[in-house]
């Protein structure tokens, strides 16, 4: 793709404050018409804020934005969208109670003065056509809540396409997609780009960014640190720019475990999600669980932890015996760090200290009476141990970056003696720096004898960290891989049901 001559979008010294915190500091950004421009940066670097400003979701405080050569004076999201700008989020912004067609048309404007009435027939035809172009086969009348996440993303895409699209912003779209779904998405994005739609792409997975984009802007702490042509940069360079320092590749220490069983799961079943799952974990072992989204991996962790109804099977801790309920699990030294921090792991509207203390009430209180001094003490200890960046322990967790939030979500368990750590997508939505810190923590903990059961969709993470991998498919164990059997391909084959190799159960 040749010279970037015509700029669709030009942002000049854009700044934005939330409260007293500056999120964007005089950012310049431009975008050519036939370009896929990626924005990378750690969490809290200001990527999302920048695209929110471009798409009109939040007003700009200082700075100018030129769209198609003319100054954009309005900040009404509706007008901006009508001028051909669309934003697709990580989580599809859809309306679960409405049908596909209704979702697509809901912001459509009746422009032609002739008829005030909306022509549903015509809209249905157009939508069907667009869906067919994207290779979707679901009906336009089915309710959106009955679709898979990938299909929902396609609906989101189609609703963006329905307008005369000039600029499409895609904010971390691949987080919850399977590899084949990612491929389909990228194909669509390329097709759009070829047809003249400028693309801004935000992604955490750098290999995807490198694969897709023409140009990359690196943001750090609200400032642009570099704008690189994709062909002229490498993953390592990007990481260095994003973090501002070198990050050692994760350790490739000898992956050995003690061979002493710490947890035994047998014939576990949770209706609708988990069926007949049996495995053992050793002390000092990291057991990876691979599989597609919806294969029942998170549900398996939740069932082990006692959060889900169990219709059959047993979970037995070598030290503490059978485990049925959450309380028992926790008192037996089992902890669960969930995938969705905001909904399941943290209390965003409460202080960091309260978040850290809530799992340690037994240690901080006596006879049900809280001891604030002890609470502060324990909170401080955990904050220091995990190097959580904060302004004060009474700060709300909401104000922390994704990586620091994940640290809090993990740290709250670690005042107690944790023998078995269940961790779900440890680096989802986490910046590169925090990610490596978390990986280091997992490795070290395993070395110290902790058993870790880790669910991950990040293939590299899964393969690098795990001693052994169980692959799940449709709620069952599709196979197990260990040692030299572990490879990306092997995991994928098991996950998609192409092979039943390995030491199957």
């Amino acid at each position, binding site marked *: 793709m040749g010279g970037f001559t015509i700029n669709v979008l030009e942002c000049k010294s854009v700044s934005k404050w939330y409260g007293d915190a500056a999120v964007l500091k005089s950012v310049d950004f431009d975008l050519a018409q036939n370009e896929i421009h990626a924005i990378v940066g750690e969490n809290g670097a200001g990527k999302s804020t920048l695209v929110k400003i471009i798409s009109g979701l939040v007003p700009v405080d200082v700075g100018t934005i030129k769209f198609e050569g003319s100054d954009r004076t309005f900040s009404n999201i509706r007008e901006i969208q*009508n001028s051909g700008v669309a*934003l697709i989020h990580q989580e599809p912004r859809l309306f679960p109670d409405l049908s596909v067609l209704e979702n697509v048309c809901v912001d*459509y404007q*009746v422009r032609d003065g002739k008829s005030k009435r909306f022509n549903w027939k015509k809209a249905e035809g157009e939508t069907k056509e667009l869906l067919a172009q994207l290779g979707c086969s679901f009906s336009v009348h089915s309710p959106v809540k009955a679709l898979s996440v990938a299909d929902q993303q396609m609906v989101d895409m189609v609703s963006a396409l329905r307008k005369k699209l000039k600029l499409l912003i895609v904010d971390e779209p691949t987080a919850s997609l399977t590899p084949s779904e990612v491929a389909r998405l990228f194909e669509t994005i390329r097709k759009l780009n070829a047809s003249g739609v400028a693309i801004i792409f935000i992604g955490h997975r750098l290999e995807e960014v490198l694969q897709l984009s023409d140009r990359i802007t690196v943001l750090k702490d609200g400032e642009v640190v570099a704008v690189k042509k994709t062909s002229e940069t490498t993953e390592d360079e990007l990481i260095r720019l994003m973090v501002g320092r070198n990050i050692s590749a994760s350790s490739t220490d000898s992956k050995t475990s003690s061979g002493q069983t710490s947890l035994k799961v047998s014939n576990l079943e949770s209706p609708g999600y988990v069926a007949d799952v049996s495995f053992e974990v050793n002390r000092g072992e990291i057991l990876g669980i691979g599989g597609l989204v919806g294969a029942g991996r998170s549900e398996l962790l939740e069932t082990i932890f006692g959060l889900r109804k169990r219709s059959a099977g047993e979970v037995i801790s070598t030290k503490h015996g059978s485990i049925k309920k959450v309380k028992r699990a926790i008192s037996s030294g089992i902890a669960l760090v969930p995938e969705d921090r905001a909904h399941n792991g943290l209390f965003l509207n409460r202080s960091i200290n309260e978040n850290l203390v809530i799992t340690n009430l037994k240690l901080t209180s006596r006879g049900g009476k809280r001891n604030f001094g002890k609470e502060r003490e324990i909170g401080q200890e955990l904050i220091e141990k995990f190097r959580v960046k904060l302004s004060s322990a009474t700060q709300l967790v909401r104000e922390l970056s994704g990586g620091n939030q994940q640290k809090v979500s993990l740290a709250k368990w670690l005042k107690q003696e944790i023998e078995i750590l269940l961790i779900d997508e440890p680096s989802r939505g986490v910046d590169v720096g925090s990610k490596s810190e978390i990986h280091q923590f997992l490795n070290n903990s395993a070395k110290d004898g902790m058993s870790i059961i880790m669910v991950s969709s990040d293939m590299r993470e899964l393969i690098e960290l795990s001693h052994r991998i169980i692959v799940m498919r449709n709620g069952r164990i599709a196979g197990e891989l260990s040692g030299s059997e572990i490879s990306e391909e092997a995991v994928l084959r098991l996950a998609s049901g192409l092979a039943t190799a390995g030491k199957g159960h």
Partner: protein
Amino acid sequence: MAIKLNSKVTYLFKKREFGIFLFILVLLAVFGTLEPRFFRSDNLSAILSSVGILMVVGAGQTLVIVTRNIDLSVGSTLGMAAMVMGMVARENPDFPIFGLIVIAMIVGGLCGLLNGLLVSYGKIPAIIATLGTLAIIRGAVFLVSDNVQIDPNDVPQGIINLATTSPIGIPWLLIFAFLSIILVWYVSSKTLLGKRIYAVGSNPEGAISRGLSFNKITIMVFVFVGVLAGLGGVLYTARYATINPADVGRGLEFDVISAVVIGGTNIFGGSGTALGTALGCILIGILSNGLTVVGVSPFWKACATGFLILAAVAIDNSVRKRQEQNFLLAIRNQRTVN
């Protein structure tokens, strides 16, 4: 892949409205068997006209609840509209009927506008804002009326006729009620505006990011329920002829919200239909009339309404859960096929 429904019949059974309809049939059968006179035409038509006001206001309340809001002030708004209209009629006996209706609807709409502004731009949770205006508007009714009620002979015959005369065999009161329900049905199922209202309730953040004017839609539904409450004030006057500042519309919010909830509208927004609300209103009407007709002690009647709401939401909830489970299973099956 969409969930394929086996046939139209199972589709009908899965519809929430059908459940209420069945329940109504059962109630009719029970009351009719115990006391055949329950079916007398004048009794049935009286039941309908007694729920007519409920239907008018319920139609508006449905949309408000669909947007994740609630309007507790409908009773006071109805009272305000009726009182202002009544006072205009008392001072100007020759005021055209149509003008009176318009006045009532405007007054109601203004009350709704107040609620809408507080909830949208004021960012006050609807339950708090309208708890406040419930009292404020009632206080205003007293100040406006100077504590004096409107007597039947001050109400123009034209208004009274709305409850009695019938251009096509059913009284105006019911025509207004049905029109309100049809209007809400039409808006919510045929127009983009309706889809936007449901979108706002279904996913508020999504609605904002899709460029829907969140505040405008919120204000719109509150003004709408206000206007309908104003119309309710006209119908109240037509039906009861006396407008007492303390009594007019008192406690209406309880009945309206009950009807909407019984009619299957999700109190957390996003789903609900006008037809369901209409059936919910009829159910409440049949119950309160029927219990007296079959001779249930008046002391048990309050219990019955409570039971009904509980039963309705419990059944609704279990049906919804089962449906969601079916969706999930369908998705899983679909993945297996792939």
